[in-house]
């Protein structure tokens, strides 16, 4: 395994100026943000169904060129690690690993994809529920208390049937619904469906990523792996007889 060169890091990382690239490909969108520490400088959110791998490099270029930042100058990657589209998550994970191979000083932090949606409502008294399409009539869902600066899970990220998730939501008096399945959820409680409910915001991804940086929760490139939430168990092979 490659050894990262020793990098001097001050005790308090918030005193350092860090260039941070945020990447989310967990849905049909590519959401990119460039920030200096927790301040968002530029962002791109583009719906690119099944074209993430084709367009990600060009969009990274489009993000950084107007602010005259070279990709080599990036210190930190904030990666939205899932749950979400398996293929989308693997594209950004492999992409970040490729970047890390090219720059030994690059560090990565990972952020739960559902928390990114909830972060938008920080310091708000409401409850935020996130529902993202997991196919086969299932959703990746979570419910957050957002009364602080950072969302606290009331129901942590998990895989639910739509019916099961709705039952859980019906226990809350009022909820804000986010995620690309939010408009398909029908609850018996009062719900708010904000604009852009389906788009993970680069601003919020950066905010969560920066917190991980301050807490030094770096993940090495060889340990980057999407948060699948589901084990994949293939069907057992039909065998006429066991010759072994």
């Amino acid at each position, binding site marked *: *395994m*490659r050894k990262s060169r020793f990098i001097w890091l001050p005790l308090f990382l918030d005193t350092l100026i860090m260039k941070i690239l945020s990447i989310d490909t967990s849905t049909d969108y590519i959401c990119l943000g460039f920030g200096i520490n927790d301040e968002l400088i530029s962002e791109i959110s583009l719906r690119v169904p099944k*074209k993430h*791998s*084709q*367009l*990600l*490099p*060009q969009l*990274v*270029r489009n993000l950084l060129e107007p602010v005259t930042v070279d*990709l*080599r100058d990036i210190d930190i990657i904030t990666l939205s690690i899932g749950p979400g589209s*398996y*293929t989308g998550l*693997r*594209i*950004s*994970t*492999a*992409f*970040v*690993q*490729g*970047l*890390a*191979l*090219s*720059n030994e000083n690059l560090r990565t932090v990972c952020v739960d994809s559902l928390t990114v949606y909830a972060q938008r409502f920080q310091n708000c008294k409401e409850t935020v529920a996130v529902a993202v399409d997991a196919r086969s009539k299932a959703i990746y869902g979570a419910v957050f208390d957002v009364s602080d600066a950072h969302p606290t899970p009331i129901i942590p990220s998990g895989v639910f049937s739509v019916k099961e998730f709705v039952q859980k939501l019906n226990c809350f008096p009022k909820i804000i619904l986010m995620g690309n399945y939010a408009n398909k959820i029908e609850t018996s409680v009062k719900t708010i469906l904000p604009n852009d409910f389906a788009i993970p915001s680069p601003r919020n991804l950066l905010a969560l990523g920066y917190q991980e940086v301050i807490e030094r929760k770096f993940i090495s*490139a*060889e340990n*980057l*792996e*999407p948060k*699948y939430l589901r084990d*994949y168990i*293939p069907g057992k*092979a*039909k*065998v*006429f*007889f*066991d*010759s*072994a």
Partner: protein
Amino acid sequence: MKVLGIETSCDETAVSIIENNTILSEQVYSQTVHESLGGVVPELASRDHIKKLYVLACEVLDKSGLAISDIDAIAVTAGPGLPGSLIIGVSFAKAIALMNKIPIIAINHLEGHVFGVKLSYEITPPFLALLVSGGHTELIYVHNWGDYKLLGTTRDDAAGEALDKAAKVIGLSYPGGPEIQKIAEKGDPRSFRFPIAMLHSDDFDFSFSGLKTAFALTIRKLGIEKTKRNLANILASYQDAIVDSLLLKLDRASKKFGINRIVISGGVAASKRLREKATVKNWELYMPETKYCTDNASMIALAGEFYLLKGQQTPMNFPINSSWMLGTPLSMK
């Protein structure tokens, strides 16, 4: 020119660095997760590639003594293959090219196998290439490097797939070819008659699904006890039917085009029986050593170097194409 090759089209994760047709460093990881499952499970393959690709790339760089900044270009398999697997290699490769501002070239996996013969031999086209593996069965007329005509392909299962599926039916592990070969060595290949499909067709296509069904029917008819007693004979006969089917079409193509120089590559080319039967033909035969018959990244880097030296590269927004046909351009939809 130092070219970093990346191959993740199926269940091998492979990285290599070559310069002037010479391998500087290479690594191949063959996934073991599919062994008890009777075939490659695409989702498991994708999950394994993500775990291994970065680690292998680091090892290849370390062993070569090179830094990533020493690499001049990237060559990556963009198809044919499993979409979820291809996209990992391609995304990884694009990031390296983007960060280092170096050219990238998308390589057809089958063309990689054609170039792969150069890893074992000095050979000059024209020749006929039979690429035969668990995913492919293609007969190609190689007029020159980069100039091909696809003469024939399988209409259903690949030859290796027919071996894998038969192995699965009788509870052998994946890949089926080596397991079948081990048992078949003790058997008489003339003891059971299996059909050779498309024997009388005047094209160069193959078909193995009927053979596979005949195998299943045979063991069902014999029953468990008789099948167990005759297993070596059944498998020897079945293996020979596949080998004969491949060599028959190759022989016809050789005669029709007057080409005696033959290359047989791909995972099934590691089969001892195929090698035995091909060797006795009156051909100038090239069968790469086993490690270059199976999927590897050196063959991809080699094909990449060929095109890069001609000044070609692929725009960064290229897609993967899971059914990319050899000799056709990579669609840029």
